[in-house]
Protein backbone atom coordinates (compact mmCIF):
# COMPACT_ATOMS: atom_id res chain seq x y z
CA UNK A 1 0.00 0.00 0.00
CA UNK A 2 2.66 2.42 1.06
CA UNK A 3 4.71 1.64 -2.00
CA UNK A 4 1.74 2.34 -4.26
CA UNK A 5 1.20 5.65 -2.55
CA UNK A 6 4.87 6.45 -2.86
CA UNK A 7 4.75 5.51 -6.51
CA UNK A 8 1.77 7.78 -7.00
CA UNK A 9 3.65 10.59 -5.39
CA UNK A 10 6.63 10.10 -7.63
CA UNK A 11 6.93 13.06 -9.89
CA UNK A 12 5.79 12.28 -13.45
CA UNK A 13 3.01 9.94 -12.34
CA UNK A 14 1.73 12.42 -9.76
CA UNK A 15 1.62 15.18 -12.36
CA UNK A 16 -0.29 13.13 -14.90
CA UNK A 17 -2.67 11.74 -12.30
CA UNK A 18 -3.44 15.09 -10.79
CA UNK A 19 -3.81 16.65 -14.21
CA UNK A 20 -6.35 13.95 -14.98
CA UNK A 21 -8.15 14.76 -11.76
CA UNK A 22 -8.13 18.46 -12.60
CA UNK A 23 -9.46 17.83 -16.10
CA UNK A 24 -12.22 15.70 -14.64
CA UNK A 25 -13.05 18.40 -12.11
CA UNK A 26 -13.10 21.16 -14.69
CA UNK A 27 -15.38 19.25 -17.02
CA UNK A 28 -17.72 18.53 -14.16
CA UNK A 29 -17.44 22.08 -12.97
CA UNK A 30 -18.76 23.27 -16.32
CA UNK A 31 -21.81 21.08 -15.88
CA UNK A 32 -22.39 22.15 -12.30
CA UNK A 33 -21.97 25.78 -13.21
CA UNK A 34 -24.48 25.56 -16.07
CA UNK A 35 -26.93 24.15 -13.60
CA UNK A 36 -26.13 26.84 -11.03
CA UNK A 37 -26.36 29.52 -13.67
CA UNK A 38 -29.78 28.38 -14.76
CA UNK A 39 -31.04 28.09 -11.23
CA UNK A 40 -29.78 31.54 -10.23
CA UNK A 41 -31.25 33.03 -13.40
CA UNK A 42 -34.55 31.33 -12.76
CA UNK A 43 -34.76 32.43 -9.15
CA UNK A 44 -33.95 36.03 -10.03
CA UNK A 45 -36.59 35.91 -12.74
CA UNK A 46 -39.27 34.42 -10.49
CA UNK A 47 -39.08 31.02 -12.14
CA UNK A 48 -38.16 27.56 -10.87
CA UNK A 49 -35.56 26.65 -13.44
CA UNK A 50 -34.75 23.09 -14.46
CA UNK A 51 -36.60 20.77 -12.11
CA UNK A 52 -37.62 17.74 -14.15
CA UNK A 53 -34.50 15.61 -14.61
CA UNK A 54 -33.56 13.95 -11.34
CA UNK A 55 -34.35 15.29 -7.89
CA UNK A 56 -34.92 19.06 -8.19
CA UNK A 57 -33.30 18.91 -11.60
CA UNK A 58 -29.84 17.95 -10.43
CA UNK A 59 -29.30 15.62 -13.35
CA UNK A 60 -30.06 18.30 -15.90
CA UNK A 61 -26.36 18.85 -16.79
CA UNK A 62 -25.97 15.13 -17.45
CA UNK A 63 -28.99 15.20 -19.73
CA UNK A 64 -27.53 18.24 -21.49
CA UNK A 65 -24.24 16.50 -22.07
CA UNK A 66 -25.95 13.40 -23.44
CA UNK A 67 -27.94 15.61 -25.75
CA UNK A 68 -24.83 17.45 -26.93
CA UNK A 69 -22.98 14.20 -27.60
CA UNK A 70 -25.79 12.78 -29.66
CA UNK A 71 -26.21 15.91 -31.74
CA UNK A 72 -24.70 16.08 -35.14
CA UNK A 73 -21.62 18.21 -35.44
CA UNK A 74 -22.38 20.55 -38.29
CA UNK A 75 -19.67 22.56 -39.93
CA UNK A 76 -20.30 25.18 -42.61
CA UNK A 77 -19.53 24.04 -46.10
CA UNK A 78 -16.92 26.64 -46.86
CA UNK A 79 -15.36 26.75 -43.42
CA UNK A 80 -11.68 26.22 -42.79
CA UNK A 81 -12.28 22.85 -41.20
CA UNK A 82 -9.07 22.35 -39.23
CA UNK A 83 -9.18 25.80 -37.74
CA UNK A 84 -12.90 25.48 -37.16
CA UNK A 85 -12.52 22.24 -35.23
CA UNK A 86 -9.31 23.26 -33.51
CA UNK A 87 -10.77 26.40 -32.02
CA UNK A 88 -12.79 24.79 -29.20
CA UNK A 89 -9.73 22.83 -28.13
CA UNK A 90 -7.56 25.91 -28.28
CA UNK A 91 -10.07 27.64 -26.05
CA UNK A 92 -10.61 24.83 -23.60
CA UNK A 93 -7.05 23.65 -22.94
CA UNK A 94 -5.61 26.95 -21.64
CA UNK A 95 -8.63 27.46 -19.41
CA UNK A 96 -8.18 23.97 -17.97
CA UNK A 97 -4.40 24.11 -17.74
CA UNK A 98 -4.28 27.15 -15.46
CA UNK A 99 -5.97 25.08 -12.79
CA UNK A 100 -2.59 23.32 -12.46
CA UNK A 101 -1.16 26.19 -10.46
CA UNK A 102 -4.20 27.10 -8.37
CA UNK A 103 -3.63 26.17 -4.74
CA UNK A 104 -6.74 24.46 -3.39
CA UNK A 105 -5.38 23.82 0.09
CA UNK A 106 -2.02 24.09 1.87
CA UNK A 107 -0.46 21.12 0.14
CA UNK A 108 -2.81 20.33 -2.69
CA UNK A 109 -1.54 22.13 -5.72
CA UNK A 110 -0.58 20.24 -8.83
CA UNK A 111 2.47 22.23 -9.77
CA UNK A 112 3.70 24.81 -7.32
CA UNK A 113 5.42 26.93 -9.94
CA UNK A 114 7.44 29.78 -8.60
CA UNK A 115 6.19 31.86 -11.55
CA UNK A 116 2.54 30.78 -11.19
CA UNK A 117 1.12 34.23 -11.81
CA UNK A 118 3.09 34.60 -15.02
CA UNK A 119 1.85 31.18 -16.09
CA UNK A 120 -1.72 32.28 -15.45
CA UNK A 121 -1.29 35.48 -17.46
CA UNK A 122 0.38 33.67 -20.31
CA UNK A 123 -2.27 31.02 -20.62
CA UNK A 124 -5.26 33.35 -20.41
CA UNK A 125 -3.79 35.30 -23.30
CA UNK A 126 -3.94 32.20 -25.42
CA UNK A 127 -7.73 32.15 -25.02
CA UNK A 128 -7.98 35.03 -27.49
CA UNK A 129 -6.30 32.83 -30.08
CA UNK A 130 -9.07 30.25 -29.89
CA UNK A 131 -11.60 33.03 -30.29
CA UNK A 132 -9.98 34.32 -33.45
CA UNK A 133 -9.67 30.79 -34.80
CA UNK A 134 -13.36 30.20 -34.22
CA UNK A 135 -14.35 33.47 -35.86
CA UNK A 136 -12.06 33.05 -38.81
CA UNK A 137 -12.68 29.38 -39.37
CA UNK A 138 -16.45 29.45 -39.48
CA UNK A 139 -16.62 31.94 -42.33
CA UNK A 140 -19.58 34.00 -41.32
CA UNK A 141 -19.87 37.74 -40.94
CA UNK A 142 -21.38 37.36 -37.49
CA UNK A 143 -18.51 35.12 -36.38
CA UNK A 144 -15.92 37.43 -37.82
CA UNK A 145 -17.41 40.45 -36.07
CA UNK A 146 -17.59 38.50 -32.84
CA UNK A 147 -13.99 37.37 -33.13
CA UNK A 148 -12.73 40.85 -33.89
CA UNK A 149 -14.64 42.22 -30.93
CA UNK A 150 -13.40 39.40 -28.75
CA UNK A 151 -9.77 39.84 -29.73
CA UNK A 152 -9.89 43.59 -29.19
CA UNK A 153 -11.64 43.21 -25.86
CA UNK A 154 -9.46 40.46 -24.44
CA UNK A 155 -6.21 42.12 -25.43
CA UNK A 156 -7.32 45.48 -24.04
CA UNK A 157 -8.48 44.03 -20.75
CA UNK A 158 -5.29 42.02 -20.40
CA UNK A 159 -3.56 45.29 -19.56
CA UNK A 160 -5.59 46.26 -16.47
CA UNK A 161 -5.68 42.59 -15.47
CA UNK A 162 -1.89 42.39 -15.33
CA UNK A 163 -1.45 45.86 -13.86
CA UNK A 164 -3.85 45.10 -11.03
CA UNK A 165 -1.83 41.99 -10.16
CA UNK A 166 1.34 43.98 -9.72
CA UNK A 167 0.26 45.42 -6.41
CA UNK A 168 -0.29 41.99 -4.95
CA UNK A 169 3.03 40.79 -6.33
CA UNK A 170 4.78 43.76 -4.77
CA UNK A 171 3.16 43.20 -1.40
CA UNK A 172 3.79 39.46 -1.37
CA UNK A 173 7.18 39.70 -2.96
CA UNK A 174 6.64 36.51 -4.91
CA UNK A 175 5.16 35.26 -8.16
CA UNK A 176 4.04 31.97 -6.66
CA UNK A 177 0.38 31.56 -5.72
CA UNK A 178 1.30 29.52 -2.69
CA UNK A 179 3.47 32.32 -1.32
CA UNK A 180 0.78 34.91 -1.96
CA UNK A 181 -1.71 32.84 -0.01
CA UNK A 182 0.70 32.26 2.83
CA UNK A 183 1.34 35.98 3.04
CA UNK A 184 -2.34 36.56 3.75
CA UNK A 185 -2.52 34.31 6.78
CA UNK A 186 -4.14 35.31 10.04
CA UNK A 187 -7.65 36.59 9.52
CA UNK A 188 -9.49 38.57 6.92
CA UNK A 189 -7.90 41.89 7.87
CA UNK A 190 -4.69 40.55 6.42
CA UNK A 191 -6.21 39.75 3.05
CA UNK A 192 -5.06 41.87 0.16
CA UNK A 193 -8.46 43.15 -0.88
CA UNK A 194 -8.31 45.77 1.88
CA UNK A 195 -5.03 47.51 1.06
CA UNK A 196 -5.54 46.86 -2.62
CA UNK A 197 -9.25 47.73 -2.92
CA UNK A 198 -9.06 49.61 -6.26
CA UNK A 199 -6.86 46.84 -7.64
CA UNK A 200 -9.32 44.24 -6.41
CA UNK A 201 -12.22 45.97 -8.16
CA UNK A 202 -10.18 46.44 -11.31
CA UNK A 203 -9.11 42.82 -11.31
CA UNK A 204 -12.67 41.72 -10.78
CA UNK A 205 -13.98 43.85 -13.66
CA UNK A 206 -11.15 42.85 -15.96
CA UNK A 207 -11.76 39.25 -14.96
CA UNK A 208 -15.41 39.55 -15.96
CA UNK A 209 -14.24 40.90 -19.29
CA UNK A 210 -11.70 38.08 -19.68
CA UNK A 211 -14.38 35.52 -18.96
CA UNK A 212 -16.64 37.29 -21.52
CA UNK A 213 -19.55 37.65 -19.16
CA UNK A 214 -22.29 40.27 -19.14
CA UNK A 215 -21.85 43.27 -19.22
CA UNK A 216 -18.75 42.52 -21.28
CA UNK A 217 -20.10 39.68 -23.41
CA UNK A 218 -19.68 41.56 -26.66
CA UNK A 219 -18.02 38.70 -28.54
CA UNK A 220 -21.23 36.75 -28.05
CA UNK A 221 -23.74 39.59 -27.97
CA UNK A 222 -26.68 37.38 -28.81
CA UNK A 223 -29.02 40.28 -29.48
CA UNK A 224 -26.67 41.87 -32.00
CA UNK A 225 -24.46 39.24 -33.55
CA UNK A 226 -26.34 36.11 -32.56
CA UNK A 227 -23.68 34.40 -30.49
CA UNK A 228 -20.74 35.91 -32.33
CA UNK A 229 -17.79 33.61 -32.77
CA UNK A 230 -19.72 30.48 -31.82
CA UNK A 231 -22.70 31.01 -34.05
CA UNK A 232 -21.76 28.16 -36.38
CA UNK A 233 -20.89 25.61 -33.72
CA UNK A 234 -23.18 22.79 -32.74
CA UNK A 235 -23.10 19.59 -30.79
CA UNK A 236 -20.05 18.84 -28.72
CA UNK A 237 -17.83 21.54 -30.25
CA UNK A 238 -20.31 24.05 -28.94
CA UNK A 239 -20.37 22.18 -25.66
CA UNK A 240 -16.58 22.43 -25.44
CA UNK A 241 -16.69 26.19 -26.05
CA UNK A 242 -19.35 26.50 -23.41
CA UNK A 243 -17.30 24.37 -21.01
CA UNK A 244 -14.28 26.57 -21.58
CA UNK A 245 -16.35 29.67 -20.88
CA UNK A 246 -17.51 28.27 -17.59
CA UNK A 247 -14.06 26.98 -16.77
CA UNK A 248 -12.54 30.39 -17.35
CA UNK A 249 -15.28 31.99 -15.27
CA UNK A 250 -14.56 29.63 -12.41
CA UNK A 251 -10.86 30.20 -12.96
CA UNK A 252 -11.14 33.96 -12.68
CA UNK A 253 -13.17 33.52 -9.51
CA UNK A 254 -10.61 31.11 -8.07
CA UNK A 255 -7.70 33.43 -8.88
CA UNK A 256 -9.57 36.38 -7.37
CA UNK A 257 -10.18 34.34 -4.25
CA UNK A 258 -6.54 33.28 -4.12
CA UNK A 259 -4.91 36.62 -4.71
CA UNK A 260 -7.24 39.01 -2.92
CA UNK A 261 -9.37 36.98 -0.57
CA UNK A 262 -6.73 34.82 1.02
CA UNK A 263 -7.22 31.63 -0.91
CA UNK A 264 -7.76 28.79 1.56
CA UNK A 265 -7.06 31.00 4.58
CA UNK A 266 -10.00 31.08 7.00
CA UNK A 267 -11.50 34.52 7.74
CA UNK A 268 -10.76 34.17 11.46
CA UNK A 269 -7.84 32.20 12.86
CA UNK A 270 -10.05 30.11 15.17
CA UNK A 271 -11.98 28.82 12.15
CA UNK A 272 -8.97 26.92 10.87
CA UNK A 273 -10.18 23.58 9.55
CA UNK A 274 -6.80 21.98 9.05
CA UNK A 275 -6.97 19.57 6.17
CA UNK A 276 -10.40 20.82 5.25
CA UNK A 277 -9.28 24.36 4.57
CA UNK A 278 -10.07 23.80 0.91
CA UNK A 279 -13.69 24.38 2.00
CA UNK A 280 -12.88 28.04 2.57
CA UNK A 281 -11.43 28.23 -0.90
CA UNK A 282 -14.53 26.61 -2.34
CA UNK A 283 -16.87 28.93 -0.46
CA UNK A 284 -15.04 32.04 -1.58
CA UNK A 285 -14.92 30.88 -5.17
CA UNK A 286 -18.59 30.02 -5.13
CA UNK A 287 -19.50 33.42 -3.73
CA UNK A 288 -17.57 35.20 -6.45
CA UNK A 289 -19.15 32.98 -9.08
CA UNK A 290 -22.53 33.90 -7.66
CA UNK A 291 -21.77 37.61 -8.01
CA UNK A 292 -20.81 36.95 -11.62
CA UNK A 293 -24.17 35.34 -12.23
CA UNK A 294 -26.03 37.99 -10.31
CA UNK A 295 -24.45 40.71 -12.44
CA UNK A 296 -25.17 38.77 -15.56
CA UNK A 297 -28.89 38.63 -14.91
CA UNK A 298 -29.17 42.25 -13.81
CA UNK A 299 -27.22 44.39 -16.21
CA UNK A 300 -27.41 45.12 -19.92
CA UNK A 301 -24.44 45.00 -22.22
CA UNK A 302 -21.98 47.77 -23.00
CA UNK A 303 -21.20 48.94 -26.48
CA UNK A 304 -17.79 48.37 -28.05
CA UNK A 305 -16.62 51.97 -27.88
CA UNK A 306 -17.85 52.35 -24.31
CA UNK A 307 -16.08 49.14 -23.39
CA UNK A 308 -12.80 50.38 -24.80
CA UNK A 309 -13.24 53.76 -23.13
CA UNK A 310 -13.88 52.10 -19.82
CA UNK A 311 -10.87 49.82 -20.11
CA UNK A 312 -8.30 52.31 -21.23
CA UNK A 313 -9.54 55.53 -19.71
CA UNK A 314 -10.74 54.31 -16.31
CA UNK A 315 -9.25 50.98 -15.34
CA UNK A 316 -5.67 51.50 -16.54
CA UNK A 317 -5.22 54.93 -14.89
CA UNK A 318 -6.70 53.64 -11.64
CA UNK A 319 -4.26 50.74 -11.66
CA UNK A 320 -1.27 52.92 -12.40
CA UNK A 321 -2.16 55.43 -9.67
CA UNK A 322 -2.68 52.75 -7.09
CA UNK A 323 0.55 51.08 -8.16
CA UNK A 324 2.42 54.27 -7.36
CA UNK A 325 0.55 54.64 -4.08
CA UNK A 326 1.47 51.10 -3.10
CA UNK A 327 5.07 51.56 -4.11
CA UNK A 328 5.25 54.87 -2.26
CA UNK A 329 3.73 53.38 0.86
CA UNK A 330 6.19 50.49 0.75
CA UNK A 331 9.07 52.90 0.47
CA UNK A 332 7.78 55.20 3.19
CA UNK A 333 6.83 52.60 5.78
CA UNK A 334 9.06 49.60 5.12
CA UNK A 335 8.37 48.32 8.62
CA UNK A 336 4.68 47.70 7.95
CA UNK A 337 5.21 45.57 4.88
Amino acid at each position, binding site marked *: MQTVLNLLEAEPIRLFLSFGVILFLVLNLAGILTFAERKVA*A*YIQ*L*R*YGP*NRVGPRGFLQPAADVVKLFTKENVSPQRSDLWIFLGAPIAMFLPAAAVWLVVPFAPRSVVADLNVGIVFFIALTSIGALGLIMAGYGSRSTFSLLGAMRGAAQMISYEVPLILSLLGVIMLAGSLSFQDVVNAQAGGFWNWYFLPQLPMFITFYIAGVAEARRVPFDLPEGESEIVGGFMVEYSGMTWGLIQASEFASMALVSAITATLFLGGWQPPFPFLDLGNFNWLWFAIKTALIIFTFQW*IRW*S*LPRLRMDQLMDFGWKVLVPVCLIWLFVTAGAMLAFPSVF
Partner: protein
Amino acid sequence: MKGMGITLKHLFDKKVTRQYPEYKKETFERSRGLLTVDMDRCIACLQCMRICPDHCISIEQEKRDADGSGKAKPYAVGFVIDDSRCMYCSLCVEVCPVNCIYHTEEFEAQAYNRLELARQFGERPVDPTIDPKPAVKKKPKAAKQAPKKEAAA
Protein backbone atom coordinates in the same frame (compact mmCIF):
# COMPACT_ATOMS: atom_id res chain seq x y z
CA MET B 1 -26.68 50.02 -9.94
CA LYS B 2 -29.96 50.19 -8.04
CA GLY B 3 -31.16 47.33 -10.17
CA MET B 4 -28.74 44.91 -8.53
CA GLY B 5 -30.56 45.23 -5.25
CA ILE B 6 -33.87 44.63 -6.95
CA THR B 7 -32.72 41.46 -8.62
CA LEU B 8 -31.26 40.29 -5.29
CA LYS B 9 -34.59 40.93 -3.63
CA HIS B 10 -36.43 38.97 -6.28
CA LEU B 11 -34.08 36.06 -5.72
CA PHE B 12 -36.05 35.25 -2.61
CA ASP B 13 -39.50 36.20 -3.86
CA LYS B 14 -42.27 33.77 -4.43
CA LYS B 15 -42.03 32.22 -7.86
CA VAL B 16 -44.81 32.90 -10.31
CA THR B 17 -44.44 30.13 -12.86
CA ARG B 18 -46.92 27.32 -12.89
CA GLN B 19 -45.84 23.75 -13.35
CA TYR B 20 -47.97 23.01 -16.35
CA PRO B 21 -48.89 19.35 -16.56
CA GLU B 22 -49.53 19.12 -12.83
CA TYR B 23 -51.15 22.50 -12.46
CA LYS B 24 -53.45 23.62 -15.21
CA LYS B 25 -54.59 27.16 -15.45
CA GLU B 26 -57.99 27.99 -14.17
CA THR B 27 -60.62 28.49 -16.81
CA PHE B 28 -63.34 31.07 -16.56
CA GLU B 29 -66.94 30.93 -17.47
CA ARG B 30 -66.27 32.78 -20.70
CA SER B 31 -63.07 30.96 -21.65
CA ARG B 32 -63.21 29.77 -25.18
CA GLY B 33 -61.97 26.23 -25.40
CA LEU B 34 -62.52 23.54 -28.00
CA LEU B 35 -65.85 23.60 -29.76
CA THR B 36 -68.37 20.85 -29.39
CA VAL B 37 -71.76 20.21 -30.93
CA ASP B 38 -74.92 18.81 -29.48
CA MET B 39 -76.13 16.94 -32.54
CA ASP B 40 -79.61 16.27 -31.13
CA ARG B 41 -80.43 19.93 -31.21
CA CYS B 42 -78.74 20.87 -34.49
CA ILE B 43 -81.23 21.95 -37.12
CA ALA B 44 -78.66 22.10 -39.93
CA CYS B 45 -79.28 25.74 -40.64
CA LEU B 46 -75.65 26.09 -41.84
CA GLN B 47 -75.31 29.51 -40.24
CA CYS B 48 -72.17 28.53 -38.35
CA MET B 49 -70.62 27.20 -41.52
CA ARG B 50 -71.35 30.43 -43.31
CA ILE B 51 -70.11 32.82 -40.65
CA CYS B 52 -66.94 30.92 -39.82
CA PRO B 53 -63.99 33.10 -40.91
CA ASP B 54 -61.75 30.07 -41.33
CA HIS B 55 -64.20 27.71 -42.98
CA CYS B 56 -63.40 25.15 -40.34
CA ILE B 57 -66.93 23.76 -40.05
CA SER B 58 -68.24 21.45 -42.75
CA ILE B 59 -71.78 20.13 -42.59
CA GLU B 60 -73.34 17.50 -44.80
CA GLN B 61 -77.03 18.11 -45.04
CA GLU B 62 -79.89 15.80 -45.92
CA LYS B 63 -83.68 16.05 -45.93
CA ARG B 64 -84.98 13.66 -43.37
CA ASP B 65 -88.01 13.29 -41.18
CA ALA B 66 -86.09 12.99 -37.92
CA ASP B 67 -88.68 14.05 -35.33
CA GLY B 68 -91.54 12.06 -36.77
CA SER B 69 -93.62 15.09 -37.63
CA GLY B 70 -94.19 13.77 -41.12
CA LYS B 71 -92.34 16.64 -42.74
CA ALA B 72 -88.86 16.23 -44.15
CA LYS B 73 -86.59 18.81 -42.56
CA PRO B 74 -82.88 19.52 -43.10
CA TYR B 75 -80.84 17.17 -41.00
CA ALA B 76 -77.09 17.22 -40.44
CA VAL B 77 -75.81 13.74 -41.19
CA GLY B 78 -72.20 14.85 -41.11
CA PHE B 79 -70.65 17.58 -38.97
CA VAL B 80 -66.94 18.19 -38.74
CA ILE B 81 -65.01 20.86 -36.88
CA ASP B 82 -61.43 21.13 -38.04
CA ASP B 83 -59.46 22.24 -35.01
CA SER B 84 -56.35 22.79 -37.07
CA ARG B 85 -58.08 25.79 -38.61
CA CYS B 86 -60.40 26.98 -35.85
CA MET B 87 -59.38 30.28 -34.28
CA TYR B 88 -61.81 30.18 -31.36
CA CYS B 89 -63.51 33.42 -32.31
CA SER B 90 -66.85 32.19 -30.99
CA LEU B 91 -68.80 33.62 -33.92
CA CYS B 92 -70.49 30.29 -34.60
CA VAL B 93 -71.58 30.05 -30.96
CA GLU B 94 -73.22 33.45 -31.14
CA VAL B 95 -74.90 32.87 -34.44
CA CYS B 96 -76.42 29.48 -33.60
CA PRO B 97 -80.19 29.85 -33.21
CA VAL B 98 -80.60 26.74 -31.04
CA ASN B 99 -77.37 27.00 -28.99
CA CYS B 100 -76.21 23.57 -30.05
CA ILE B 101 -72.58 24.54 -30.68
CA TYR B 102 -70.63 25.73 -27.67
CA HIS B 103 -67.15 26.03 -26.17
CA THR B 104 -65.92 23.49 -23.65
CA GLU B 105 -63.22 24.00 -21.06
CA GLU B 106 -60.81 21.76 -22.94
CA PHE B 107 -57.92 23.63 -24.44
CA GLU B 108 -55.38 20.93 -25.24
CA ALA B 109 -55.75 20.01 -28.86
CA GLN B 110 -52.76 18.12 -30.14
CA ALA B 111 -52.22 15.31 -32.57
CA TYR B 112 -49.54 13.77 -34.72
CA ASN B 113 -51.55 14.25 -37.86
CA ARG B 114 -53.61 17.17 -38.97
CA LEU B 115 -56.46 14.92 -39.96
CA GLU B 116 -56.81 13.76 -36.37
CA LEU B 117 -57.63 17.31 -35.39
CA ALA B 118 -60.79 17.26 -37.47
CA ARG B 119 -63.39 16.06 -35.00
CA GLN B 120 -66.45 14.32 -36.43
CA PHE B 121 -69.82 14.70 -34.77
CA GLY B 122 -72.33 13.33 -37.25
CA GLU B 123 -73.32 9.77 -37.99
CA ARG B 124 -71.40 9.87 -41.24
CA PRO B 125 -67.85 11.27 -41.39
CA VAL B 126 -67.26 14.29 -43.61
CA ASP B 127 -64.02 14.70 -45.45
CA PRO B 128 -62.49 17.81 -43.87
CA THR B 129 -60.15 18.39 -46.80
CA ILE B 130 -63.03 19.20 -49.10
CA ASP B 131 -63.80 22.85 -48.92
CA PRO B 132 -67.14 23.91 -47.54
CA LYS B 133 -68.99 26.43 -49.60
CA PRO B 134 -67.13 29.72 -49.16
CA ALA B 135 -69.00 32.76 -48.01
CA VAL B 136 -70.92 33.86 -51.07
CA LYS B 137 -70.85 37.49 -51.84
CA LYS B 138 -74.47 38.49 -52.15
CA LYS B 139 -75.52 41.86 -53.38
CA PRO B 140 -78.50 43.20 -51.48
CA LYS B 141 -81.71 43.22 -53.42
CA ALA B 142 -81.84 47.00 -53.56
CA ALA B 143 -78.50 47.17 -55.29
CA LYS B 144 -79.60 44.57 -57.82
CA GLN B 145 -82.86 46.27 -58.57
CA ALA B 146 -81.39 49.72 -58.97
CA PRO B 147 -79.95 49.26 -62.47
CA LYS B 148 -83.20 47.64 -63.60
CA LYS B 149 -85.17 50.66 -62.47
CA GLU B 150 -82.84 52.91 -64.32
CA ALA B 151 -83.22 50.81 -67.39
CA ALA B 152 -86.95 50.93 -67.04
CA ALA B 153 -86.97 54.66 -66.58
